């Protein structure tokens, strides 16, 4: 101990003369740091209620609740997160996982209220003073906890694939499937978007767990055409996928195909469908397409006797005759149909109702009838020269291709229309050796065909000619066709929301081609609908109850013949719905 030890502590007084570090007004609020994890804010318009925040919250402080002002719609559950500040630990993992980036945190420090219930609130709905705070913690691209990149299955190069009708896209490898399944947040937003409401998160979870058998069983609960859908489905689920809001959506269709590809050899063993008790009820199904086959499968599983009346010598409908082999190989479709038929379904091939058997007879013989005949007739354009030799309808052309006939395409084929049929026709004509040109009256943006298919068609050399429409077709002395066309421009949006094409005056031009394939729409065979005497709409489709698909007493209709030309998954959904309501009707 020295004198220094007595004097030295007085150094503390020096600080009394320094500028204080404390703030002058201790009660005035100051801003937190730019990335301070303060109170939650949620852009409720951007939020889709996927519940990923709820899933990752380790304290269970987030609950997804119904909000009156939000309507549930496709891609939005209508629920919004309610946060309990009695449980929250402000880790912000909810912000880091939010796929839409709607959930953020303000940089506010304090919130004082005497109402303890106020600390359970729905950010964005219950208005708070920090709602418009610019600063605070928000999700970064690099901090996002989800892999934004999608796996791509390998496919044959366009130069190779355009020469044959072999399937060009390969399925996922095991590693790819695991990585892709691992991206899924299991939010279930996709289930609602799928017309037949497949339990997508559950079968993806089965892939993740390596239990593909379970995945197959889950898929058969809602869709017996899963192998076909795994290849050609329009994948509405992927359009709404939560991960798609910040990255590429999960490749749901490819994962579905993966399960199908890996399990088809042992399908009977895995599904192990035991015979069910027979009810003694008989159902006649007209048309063996996706709607009819689906209805047949589920009705059979419910114990009813089912007979399918098919006008061709093979089942499959549009999947068989409208989709070329390079997208859906015939053997894949056949093995899937065989499995359905093996459940004890009777099929009458080459039978046309109204010609070979009368509809009345069918009506009398069965306890219920389901009509799933599709829209098999290609629509005509109201232009001159439609009956010229070398002008085909899209469906007619594709059917010939599917039958293995090689319809004449010459060197130049022109395809009119912007739907999937048009793309299929163009790509088929390329495979038959022609140069294809697609004429569409709107722009590429408005084309109803799948984006992916448009891209692939272009890769194979299809030439897209937008804002053009044919006005007249005539035969040239040389044997080719002269297609007179008109340029269009886009006007006001029509009832479908797409901008209406308006002819541009004085923009006439013509193209020469060897064939012209019209893929401008399809309709139900008018002779058939007239012969059975059911009510039809002005578009020629059957008029049925929108929920139950019931027309009158015991007749149900679904699929393209009820909705107009649409995709396979909607037909599957219609088949499933019809089976449910037919069974319900039997049970009273």
């Amino acid at each position, binding site marked *: *101990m020295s004198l*220094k*030890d*007595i004097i*030295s*502590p007085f*150094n*503390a007084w*020096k*600080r009394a003369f320094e500028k204080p*570090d*404390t703030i002058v007004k201790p009660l005035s609020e100051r801003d*937190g*740091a*730019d*990335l*301070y*994890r303060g109170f939650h804010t949620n852009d409720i318009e951007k939020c889709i209620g996927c519940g990923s925040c709820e*899933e*990752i919250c*380790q304290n269970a402080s987030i609950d997804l609740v119904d909000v009156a002002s939000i309507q549930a719609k496709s891609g939005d559950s209508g629920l919004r997160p309610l946060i309990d500040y009695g449980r929250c*630990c*402000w*880790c*912000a*993992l909810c912000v*880091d*996982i939010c796929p839409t980036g709607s959930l953020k945190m303000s940089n506010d420090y304090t919130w004082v209220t005497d109402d303890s219930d106020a600390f359970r609130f729905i950010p964005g709905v219950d208005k708070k003073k920090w709602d418009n705070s610019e600063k605070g*913690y928000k999700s*970064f691209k*690099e*901090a996002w*906890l*989800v*892999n934004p990149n999608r796996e791509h299955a390998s496919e044959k190069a366009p130069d190779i694939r355009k020469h044959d009708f072999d399937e060009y896209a390969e399925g996922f490898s095991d590693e790819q499937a695991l*990585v892709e*399944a*691992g*991206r899924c*947040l*299991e939010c279930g937003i996709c289930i609602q978007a799928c017309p037949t409401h497949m339990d997508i998160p559950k079968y993806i979870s089965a892939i*993740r767990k390596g239990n593909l058998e379970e995945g197959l069983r889950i898929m058969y609960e809602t869709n017996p055409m899963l192998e076909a859908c795994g290849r050609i489905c329009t994948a509405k689920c992927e359009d709404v996928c939560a991960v798609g809001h910040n990255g590429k959506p999960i490749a749901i269709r490819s994962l579905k195909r993966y399960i199908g590809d890996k399990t088809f050899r042992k399908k009977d063993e895995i599904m192990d469908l035991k015979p069910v008790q027979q009810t003694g009820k008989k159902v006649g199904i007209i048309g063996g397409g996706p709607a009819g086959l689906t209805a047949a499968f589920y009705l059979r599983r419910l114990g009813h006797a089912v007979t399918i009346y098919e006008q061709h010598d093979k089942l499959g409908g549009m999947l068989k005759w409208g989709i070329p082999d390079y997208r859906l190989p015939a053997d894949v479709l056949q093995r899937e149909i065989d499995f359905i038929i093996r459940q004890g379904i009777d099929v009458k091939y080459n039978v046309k109702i109204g010609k070979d058997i009368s509809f009345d007879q069918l009506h009398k013989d069965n306890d219920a009838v389901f009509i799933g005949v599709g829209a098999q007739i290609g629509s005509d354009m109201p232009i001159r020269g439609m009956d010229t030799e070398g002008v085909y309808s899209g469906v007619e052309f594709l059917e010939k291709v599917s039958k293995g006939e090689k319809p004449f395409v010459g060197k130049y084929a022109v395809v009119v229309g912007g739907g999937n049929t048009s793309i299929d026709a163009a790509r088929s004509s390329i495979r038959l050796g022609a140069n294809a040109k697609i004429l569409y009256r709107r722009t590429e943006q408005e084309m109803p065909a799948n984006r992916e298919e448009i891209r692939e068609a272009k890769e194979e050399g299809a030439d897209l000619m937008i804002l053009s429409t044919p006005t007249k077709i005539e035969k040239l002395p040389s044997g080719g066709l002269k297609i007179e066309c008109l340029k269009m421009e886009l006007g006001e949006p029509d009832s479908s929301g797409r901008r209406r094409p308006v002819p541009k005056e004085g923009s006439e031009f013509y193209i020469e081609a060897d064939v012209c394939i019209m893929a401008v729409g399809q309709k139900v065979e008018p002779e058939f609908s007239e012969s059975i005497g059911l009510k039809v709409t002005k578009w020629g489709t059957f008029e049925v109850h929108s929920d139950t698909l019931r027309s009158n007493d015991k007749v149900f209709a679904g699929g393209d013949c009820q909705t107009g030309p649409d995709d396979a998954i909607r037909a599957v959904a219609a088949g499933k719905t019809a089976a449910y309501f037919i069974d319900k009707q039997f049970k009273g």
Partner: protein
Amino acid sequence: MKPIWNDTQEYDLKSGKYVKIWQGPQHPGVTGNMSLELLLEGDEIKWLKTHVGYLHRGFEKLMERRKFINCFPIVCRICVPEPDTNEYLFAAATEELSGIEIPERAKWIRALNLEMARLAATIMGLGGQAASFGLGTIGQWAVAHRDFLLDSFEELTGGRIYHMYMIPGGVRYDIPEGFAGRLEKTLVKIEKLISDIDKVMFNNAVFKSRAKGLGIIPKDWIEPFGITGTTARGSGVNYDVRKDHPYLVYDRLDFEVNVGTDGDVYERSLIRKEESLLSIRLIRQILSKMPKTGPVRTFIPDILHWKIPAGETYLKAESGRGEYGYYMVTDGSEYPRRVHVKGASYTHAMALLEKLGEGVTNADIFGLMVSLQTCPPEIER
């Protein structure tokens, strides 16, 4: 070796010679929710027993029911003054068991974060040490300066106390623009504070007379008790995980650890003061040596269902209070099978305090307790 502690002393409480009192769990002097059962004869402690269990939140068990990513926000809560060591060790254990290599820059940022945390904890510890001997001014200075560091933490990590920044795979995001400059200003302030503390605390007749010779831990007690960190270094044992078992980037940093001789409260405080200066030097070194750009996080696919292959590991790091360890067992599922946390003060905060407390006056017992850096939350996990 003879047992260095036995619990057989008996005092006749009815004799009127002794008084038994409890201090804690709610007492301004104890360093957390822990209580001391004291038997006093006059002002002198004749017998002392420590009681823990007031702060048991069952983190180790909670983790067994949580997915790996969900454990990330809770581990920091095991230690309030220096939570980052927990974050680092948990993340590092998951990374080691799952075979994930974190980016180079993330290693440097983690080291920066750990040194900042150590600095914040040591200066608050110094303030607490001074305050426990009645030098409250230093306590106030220290807490204010820790707050400046918390501002830096807030800027870097988004949180002041619990940072939740060292996520498995690296760190959550990169250092903000201009951060190093602002941190440097705080470091300069802290250097000045330490020079003031040197004058006001270490050259202070009151502090010296009370701290010198108090709670002497002989060197040969260090190993049997398993004492580590500044407490061990104060008694002349040169052991520092950063130096002896380097992790992150410590093998690339140039530093010497401080070792004392006396083993009393004064020596331990002095070592801690040197330790905070060392942290400042290390922070500057890290900021100048770290790669200027590069990724800061290795992406972990499928974080919600992250499965770690079966395995076990024990990882240790030097916290401000000594060796901190995480023993993790995984079984290939989405949940840790077992996580055991070795708190740095666990080894000496109970048994050793009971031993050292005998003969100490009631007024000095808290000074002694603070000098052992007792941290009840990490004792109980």
